[in-house]
């Protein structure tokens, strides 16, 4: 009777713990005790005896591990506005750990190197950078503590340098390094684990990184100015009283968009603007600063073209001045 009760109790305890440990991909939690006890029954003469061995105990140490993946799978477009790259950092170790997060835009093979503006942790876990909500950290600073198997999303916000040209590509690296320790796999970190247990650097070396891609989407604006002269005598000579028609053609190329494009020109000295002669695409614009795109003053003209996508039709601005 006594032996049976013992066996049943041991069985119940074992089954309960199996469910607890197998839940972790990272493995048995650091600090867990492995305890082994054998028991035996035997008969000798008329009696049956039950004996139990000593209990030998081994504590599970912390195995340091980290994985980084880029969640931005297709290159993010970067142009006049910054690009947000998303990464995931997972604690693959068996103990709580935090990780230094370092963004590096200088990657070998880059056509251009972006400028890292912000490193942020997705505090609300929605996968979208929310300024003022998500935690902005200094580049290279540590994350919060992650439980085994837990992961966080990290944002790197990068801006294109002025040297970047349309369709050039670039990569930005996020490296996560265990605060517990890193180095050659197998390196012992005495007493550095959770609760003061020893830690051992795992196969990842305690550090991992991933690359996410950028593609420059920029627009190039070319303005071409020409002039035609009509003199009072039916000719084309630049004499006093002649009318000069200036034409400015705005040509936008590239995969990006020229945003807030505004064309300004100043009248040449010795000329006088001819009122109400300003046109855009052949349509007259009033001189006054009003709801239409153009304004003319005594010194020059301004035409607001706004956001112009690369490859869209050329826009032609024209105005007339008279030589004094």
């Amino acid at each position, binding site marked *: 009777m006594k032996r049976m009760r013992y066996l049943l109790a041991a069985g119940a305890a074992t089954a309960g713990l199996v469910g607890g440990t197998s839940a972790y991909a990272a493995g048995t939690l650091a600090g867990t005790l492995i305890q082994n006890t054998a028991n035996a029954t035997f008969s000798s003469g008329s009696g049956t005896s039950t*004996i139990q061995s000593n209990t030998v105990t081994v504590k599970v140490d912390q195995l340091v591990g980290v994985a980084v993946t880029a969640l931005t799978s297709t290159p993010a477009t970067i142009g006049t506005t910054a690009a947000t790259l998303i990464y995931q950092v997972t604690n693959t170790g068996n103990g709580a750990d935090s990780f230094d997060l370092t963004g590096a835009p200088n990657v070998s093979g880059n056509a251009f190197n972006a400028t890292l503006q912000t490193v942020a942790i997705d505090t609300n876990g929605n996968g979208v950078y929310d300024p003022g909500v998500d935690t902005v950290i200094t580049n290279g600073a540590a994350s919060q503590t992650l439980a085994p198997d837990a992961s966080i999303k990290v944002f790197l916000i990068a801006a294109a340098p002025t040297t970047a040209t349309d369709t050039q590509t670039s990569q930005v690296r996020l490296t996560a390094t265990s605060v517990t320790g890193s180095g050659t796999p197998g390196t012992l970190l005495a007493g550095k684990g959770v609760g003061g247990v020893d830690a051992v650097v795992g196969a990842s070396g305690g550090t991992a990184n991933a690359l996410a891609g950028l593609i420059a989407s920029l627009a190039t604006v070319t303005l071409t100015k020409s002039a035609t002269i009509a003199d009072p005598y039916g000719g084309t000579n630049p004499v006093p009283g002649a009318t000069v028609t200036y034409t400015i053609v705005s040509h936008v190329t590239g995969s990006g968009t020229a945003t807030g494009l505004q064309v300004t020109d100043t009248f040449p000295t010795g000329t006088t603007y001819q009122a109400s002669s300003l046109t855009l695409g052949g349509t007259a614009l009033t001189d006054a600063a009003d709801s239409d795109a153009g304004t003319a003053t005594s010194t020059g003209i301004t035409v607001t073209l706004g956001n112009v996508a690369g490859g869209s039709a050329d826009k032609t601005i024209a105005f007339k001045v008279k030589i004094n």
Partner: protein
Amino acid sequence: MRNFSRNVVTALVVLAATPALALAAPGAVSLESSIKLDKVVTEKGQTHHEYVAPQKVVPGNHLLFVTSYRNTGDKPVDHFVVTNPVPSPVALESAGADNFDVSVDGGKTWGKLSQLSVTKPGASARAAEAADVTHVRWVIPVIAPGAAGTLEYHAVVR
């Protein structure tokens, strides 16, 4: 005076004999458990296993659980059954697991691993795997006085 002294001597003999009698009946077997770390060492392109004291143990490490027994009595013992619950943080390794009986249900039923099956709630029965094993058991028919041996199982830290 002489009688008194003889009585004292007799009493001493009885006292000395009592612990020995208690050990001898009904039979005495020592049982000792130990854990060793199974370390694969590569030297000059050759690998071999070293079983060392487990200084550092992390998930994925291979452990050797050893139970040593010895019949310390002066009579043989029969039907010596050693039962060892497999600690939950480790999983039995399949290599060598057919050398003993195992249980996958907390010690209720026993058999060779290949003969057992597991039924989880809401799932159909499947063949038991080494990682399902909750207990291992050895049955030794007779241990002669003074005879000793070791029982081993290999397991990996989950």
